[in-house]
């Protein structure tokens, strides 16, 4: 193993980290937006992400069924899967808010632990509902994305780096989504209302903003982004299970904290940074430590870096140190 060998895979490693990072970034936005408006860590968001992956998979199975395809072009099929998953995951997220969090809010629960525990409960519920669905519908636990030659075709890039068409699609769709969201939040009336509610819900209400509607819309947007991320994740790594959301969801949450929770550009950057940290450490740790620390330490290393960063910058990369309003 020479230094030249190690360097030869560096561009590819960074590219793989980028793909993973975009997935984390899109999921992280769901956490950070909900935290922005409600101050709640919505742990059920990882399941919204997983449900997006399952919905996308079903679109591929139904409309892309090789015997009688409704849509035979894989790119159109992917577009359809993304649209349906966006809608489906968005609706699931709205329903979670409507059925679980809003009643608690109405009751005027002051203890912030109550909605958080509820979120964890909802998360388990959704996992098991998906498990039941997968067992009844497919009689299996591991669900596979269909593979298409057109999406799996490989492009050669400089420096011995390769990328599949689906990797390019992932990057393109993610960038589109991130730009779209930034535009929506900063340039539209809805975005202004979301920012107002996240600054101060009561004052926003006094200004004639219906906070409940805005919260609902926030869940819709976050859920839709999670759904897109789910489809792209499933397409990239091909295997989806009812528990597929747990680890990526947790890491996306950490990415949101890393970027400064509540901060939208922070979540994007946090996701990209975490994707790089994880892939770089997973790939290089065994080489750099002479095999003493294997790939299994990639999460440990990534989270250790995170702990160190938060020690020196507790508000995260982009977060402002907001003093408590009195």
């Amino acid at each position: 193993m020479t230094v030249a060998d190690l360097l030869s895979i560096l561009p590819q490693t960074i590219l793989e980290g980028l793909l993973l990072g975009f997935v984390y970034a899109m999921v992280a936005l769901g956490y950070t937006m909900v935290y922005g408006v409600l101050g709640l860590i919505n742990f059920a968001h990882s399941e919204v992400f997983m449900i997006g992956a399952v919905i996308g998979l079903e679109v591929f199975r139904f409309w892309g069924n090789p015997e009688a395809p409704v849509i035979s072009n894989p790119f159109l099929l992917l577009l359809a899967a993304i649209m349906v998953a966006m809608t489906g995951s968005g609706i699931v997220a709205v329903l979670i808010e409507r059925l679980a969090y809003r009643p608690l809010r109405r009751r005027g629960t002051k203890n912030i632990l109550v909605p958080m525990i509820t979120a964890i409960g909802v998360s388990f519920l959704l996992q098991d509902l998906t498990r039941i669905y997968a067992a009844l519908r497919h009689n299996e636990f591991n669900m596979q994305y269909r593979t298409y030659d057109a999406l799996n075709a490989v492009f050669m890039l400089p420096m011995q780096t390769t990328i599949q068409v689906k990797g390019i699609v992932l990057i393109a769709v993610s960038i589109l989504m991130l730009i779209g969201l930034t535009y929506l939040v900063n340039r539209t009336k809805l975005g202004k209302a979301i920012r107002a509610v996240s600054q101060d819900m009561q004052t926003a209400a006094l200004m004639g903003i219906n906070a409940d509607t805005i919260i609902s819309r926030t869940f819709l947007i976050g859920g839709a982004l999670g759904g897109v991320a789910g489809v792209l994740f499933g397409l990239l790594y091909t295997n989806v299970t009812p528990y597929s959301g747990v680890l990526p969801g947790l890491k996306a949450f950490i990415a949101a904290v890393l970027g400064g929770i509540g901060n939208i550009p922070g979540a994007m950057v946090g996701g990209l940074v975490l994707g790089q940290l994880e892939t770089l450490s997973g790939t290089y740790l065994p080489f750099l430590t002479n095999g003493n620390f294997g790939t299994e330490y990639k999460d440990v290393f990534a989270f250790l870096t995170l702990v160190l960063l938060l020690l020196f910058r507790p508000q995260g990369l982009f977060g402002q140190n907001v003093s408590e309003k009195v």
Partner: protein
Amino acid sequence: MKRFATIALGVLALGVASAQPNVIKIASVSPLSGPQSGLGTAIAQGAQIAIEDAQARFQQLGFQLQFAPQDDQATPDVGVAVARRIVNDADLLGIVGHLNSGVAIAASEIYKDTNLVMVSPANTNPRVTDRGLLNVNRICGRDDIQGPVGAEYAVRVLRRSRLFVVHDKTPYGQGLAEAFAARARELGANVVALVGTEEASNFQPLILQMRALRPDLVYYGGIYDKGGVLVKQMRERGITATFMGGDGLDASDLVKIAGSASKGVLFTTTAGPISTLPRAAAFAQRYKAKFGRDAEAYAVYAFDAANVILTAIEASIRANNGRKPTREQVARAVREVRMDGLTGRIEFDSKGDRKLSDYYIISLREARYPGEVLRVIQFAPPAARQ
């Protein structure tokens, strides 16, 4: 639906803890839900057929024979919880299971307190029997032979010299991978990596390492649910090294998960395909008619494992003048069993290992399960060979 009904009945039956003088229960414990349920369900169903066959025989002896399939979810802590629950049922006289060595080793520590006998169709880790427990037996082979058999084939026959070894960090996967790597090193091959990972979906870091290390063979110690995803992602990223593994890959779901990437996958297993077992043809037909799917190789082993227990119970009922035997009597009787099962001659040595086991090398040449048998080798377990 019928399966759910049976399982529900089994659970209900075990819920009633009070002993009934004329009821004898056999449980199967294997993953019936979760990522490894495909193989786990096959084990429960193989055992179910054996028990239903024996019900009339036990009726004549004056006993009602019941089957109670249990779900260990392929997780040691669930396996131990199930074990604690079922040992309390006094009517339960034998266990067919588990699928995973890590679960079996943990759960058998509970069974041993009451000498509840366990006959495993699939646990290949050496420590399962090397602890010398009276109640633990297996009718499959061992990883300290299976791993080296795979290594000899990879190095001597396939002439592979740069080996990348991955395992799933379970006692089964790690034990197998280490046994493979050790023998491969003895044979002069270069083991370029020996890594463990619990990852289930994103194997890119490993694949990047393969790009740098350029192995000509990747060995996976683990189960098909992760191994299938790994080989699929490898092929998508242009890694063409031969993919090899152990009996954890011996499942039809591997082909479902990996699709065309399963083409050319090699694995060693201690359970031969049903087509190579002349006596198992009728069983395979009945299994398909009853459950609507093809029998996995380990379903036949579960059938034999259940029959070992049933034979031992019958022998101890006779020795006991027609009265219900104790668990210890059954456990001792299992070690005395000499029978011809569907998988061949079954006899146990003093540790509970089968005296002679078959080791198969199988290739999924056409990306179809079951694959093509390349070699069959018979080995005795280590202690019996001395």
